[in-house]
C-alpha cells in the first residue's frame, strides 16, 4: 500500500517541477519588460537599469528561476511590481474567496451529477433519462459566464435573493459568505455537472452489463441496492477521473466568473496582474493554480487506490 502512494507522490513532484520550469520559460520568452512598464516609455536608461537590478532582472535566467522556486518553497513569493506588497499577502487574501468558491462549485456539481447520472442510467431509455440528457446537452452547450449573467439577472436583479458584486468575507460567520458565493458557484458548477452527469450515466450503464451485477441480481438484492452499492461504486472510477480533469477547467472558469460577479478572488487577481504586466504576480498565481491542479490529480490517484483494491499492489 505504501509503495503505490510513494510512486504517485513522486510523479506529482516531477509534474510540479516541469510545470514550474515551463511557466518560467513561457513568461521569459513573452515580450514586455516589467521595468519598462513600471517606469513608462520616457524612462532614462540608468533608472531603467537600476530598477532592473532592484527587481533582479539583470541576473541570468537560471539563477532567477532557482531564486523564484526557492523563495516559493519557503513561502516568499516576492514583491508585486505594481502594488509593492508581498505577493504572498495578495494571494492569501484572495484564496479565502477562491478556494471556498471552487469547493462549493465542485460540491454542487457532484451533488447534481451523481444522482442525475445514476437516475438516467437506471431509467435508461425512459422519460427521466431523456430529461437528464437534455439538461446535460444544454449544460454543455451554454458557457458558464452566460449562465452567470443570467443568474445575476434572475436572482439578484429580478428577485433579489442573492447579493452581487460584493463579498463580505468570513468575519460575520459562514452564511453571508456562502450566500455571496452561491450564484457564482452555480454558474461554475452547471456546465461541469452536465458533463459529469453524462459520464456517470455512461459509466453506470457500462457497469450494469458486468457479470458481477448479474451475480448481485441472482443474490436477490433490490435494484436500488444493486445500483448504489454495486454499480455506482465501480462507476466512480471514471467519474472521479473526469472530476479531476474538470478541476483545471474550474480554475479557468473561476477567472471569468469572478470577473462577472466582481469578486476579489484569485482569478480576478490574475486577470488584473496580466493587464498590468505584473509578471511576478502572474507567475506566482499561475504556479499556485498549477499546484492546485496537480494536488487534485494526486488526490484522484489516491482515491483510486482507496476505491480499487486491485491497484493497491503497486505497478
Amino acid at each position, binding site marked *: 500500500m505504501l509503495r503505490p502512494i510513494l510512486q504517485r507522490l513522486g510523479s506529482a513532484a516531477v509534474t510540479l517541477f516541469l510545470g514550474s520550469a515551463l511557466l518560467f520559460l513561457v513568461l521569459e520568452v513573452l515580450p514586455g519588460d516589467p521595468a519598462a512598464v513600471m517606469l513608462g516609455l520616457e524612462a532614462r536608461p540608468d533608472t531603467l537599469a537600476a530598477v532592473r537590478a532592484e527587481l533582479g532582472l539583470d541576473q541570468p535566467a537560471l539563477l532567477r528561476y532557482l531564486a523564484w522556486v526557492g523563495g516559493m518553497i519557503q513561502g516568499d513569493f516576492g514583491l508585486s511590481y505594481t502594488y509593492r506588497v508581498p505577493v504572498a499577502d495578495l494571494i492569501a487574501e484572495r484564496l479565502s474567496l477562491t478556494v471556498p468558491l471552487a469547493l462549493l462549485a465542485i460540491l454542487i456539481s457532484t451533488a447534481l451529477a451523481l444522482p442525475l447520472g445514476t437516475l438516467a442510467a437506471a431509467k435508461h431509455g425512459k422519460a427521466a433519462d431523456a430529461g437528464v440528457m437534455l439538461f446535460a446537452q444544454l449544460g454543455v452547450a451554454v458557457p458558464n459566464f452566460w449562465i452567470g449573467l443570467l443568474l445575476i439577472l434572475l436572482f439578484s436583479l429580478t428577485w433579489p435573493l442573492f447579493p452581487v458584486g460584493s463579498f463580505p468575507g468570513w468575519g460575520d460567520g459562514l452564511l453571508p459568505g456562502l450566500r455571496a458565493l452561491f450564484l457564482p458557484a452555480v454558474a461554475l458548477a452547471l456546465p461541469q455537472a452536465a458533463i459529469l452527469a453524462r459520464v456517470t450515466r455512461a459509466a453506470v450503464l457500462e457497469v450494469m452489463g*458486468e*457479470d*458481477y451485477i*448479474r*451475480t*448481485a*441480481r*441472482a*443474490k*436477490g*438484492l*433490490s435494484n436500488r441496492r444493486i445500483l448504489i*452499492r*454495486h454499480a455506482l*461504486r*465501480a462507476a466512480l472510477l471514471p467519474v472521479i477521473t473526469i472530476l479531476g480533469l474538470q478541476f483545471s477547467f474550474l480554475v479557468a472558469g473561476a477567472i471569468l466568473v469572478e470577473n462577472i460577479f466582481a469578486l476579489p478572488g484569485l482569478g480576478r487577481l490574475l486577470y488584473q496582474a496580466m493587464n498590468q504586466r505584473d509578471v511576478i504576480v502572474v507567475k506566482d498565481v499561475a504556479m499556485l493554480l498549477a499546484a492546485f491542479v496537480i494536488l487534485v490529480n494526486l488526490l484522484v490517484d489516491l482515491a483510486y487506490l482507496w*476505491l*480499487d*483494491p*486491485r491497484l493497491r499492489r503497486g505497478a
Partner: protein
Amino acid sequence: MLEIDRLTLTLPLGRTGAPLPVLENVSLAVNRGERLGIVGESGSGKTLLALAILGLLPEGARAEGAIRFDGVDLLRRSAEARRAYRGRRIGMVFQEPMTALHPMLTIGDQIGEGIALHQGLRGAALRRAVLELLAQVRLPDPDRQINAYPHALSGGQRQRVGLAVALSGNPNLLIADEPTTALDATVQREILALLRDLTEARGLGLLLVSHDLGVVAHITQRLLVLYAGQAVETGPTLALLEQPLHPYLRGLRAAVPRLGRALTPIPGTLPTPQERGPGCRFSSRCAWSIGPCAEAQALRPLKARTVACWQAESLQACQQAGNLQACQQAGNLQACQQAGGLE
C-alpha cells in the same frame, strides 16, 4: 420442486428485431436432493434456460409455457415477486469466477450481503455465518480470507466464494452454469466434489449446466441433452452415456477426449436461431440422416428415457447387434433392425 413445462423462449434476434425461438418446448423437473445435468454446445440455449428460471433474462426476451417452483408458476409472477425467489429459494453459481465477483468488495461483504438480506443476520452473528459458509465451501484460512478482495484469490478459490454467495440465501435449488469450465482439471474435480457433497448434505436440488459430458457424468443422476434449443434426449445419466440413442449424443460421446483413442469431432456447427428450419436440427450434421429427418422430431418415450429421433430404435438395434459401423457405411439401419431384432 422445480418443474418446467414446455418452456419456449424467444429473443429479438431476427431481422428488424423479430422474435426468434432460442428454446422450444423444453420440459424438465428437479426434486429436492436430485441432480439434473443439462448438456449442449455453446448456443444450444442452456444458459438462457438457467437465467429464465431466475428471471434474469436479457431485455426483449419472452418466455412461454410454465416454470413452476413448488407449484407456483414463476412466469405469472411480478418482477418483485420473482426477486423473492432469487437467492432465497434458488441460488446460482456462474461460469466465470474471475468476473462474477465484484472487484471492489471483500468476499466477506459479498457473501454477508446475501446472508443479511435473506437470514436477517447482523454484526458478529453475520460474521460468524460468513465464516461458517466459507468453511463449508472449504476455502482455506477463512479468518483471513474473509477480508480479501477477489483478485487476491485463485480461480478455484473464487469459485468456492461464488458457491458460498449462491448458498448465502440458504436456497433449495442450486443452478450451476458451467461452474468448472474456467478451472484447471484438478481444481475442477475438487469443485465438482464440493458441489455434490454440499447438495447432498443440504438436500438441495441441483441443475448443472455444462457442455462437458465428463462433468455431468461425475455428479448428476439424470440428464437432459439440448440441441439448438430443443431437448433431444433425456433419461438416467449412466444409461444415456453408456448407450446414447440420439445421434447427437452419440457424437458428443465420441468427441470426449480419452487416452488411447482418436477423438471424433462432430462435423459442422450448431445452426444459429436464424438458420433453424422445421425438421430435425441435427440432420445436417448427422451420419444417419435420411427421409423423415425433414419433419419435426418430438421427444417420445423409449424404455427409461425419451428421445427425439425417429431412428432411435434402429440405432439401438444396430448397437446391440454390434455392427453399427457397418450399418452406418451401408446407410441402412432398418436392415439391421430386422436382422438384430428389437426385443
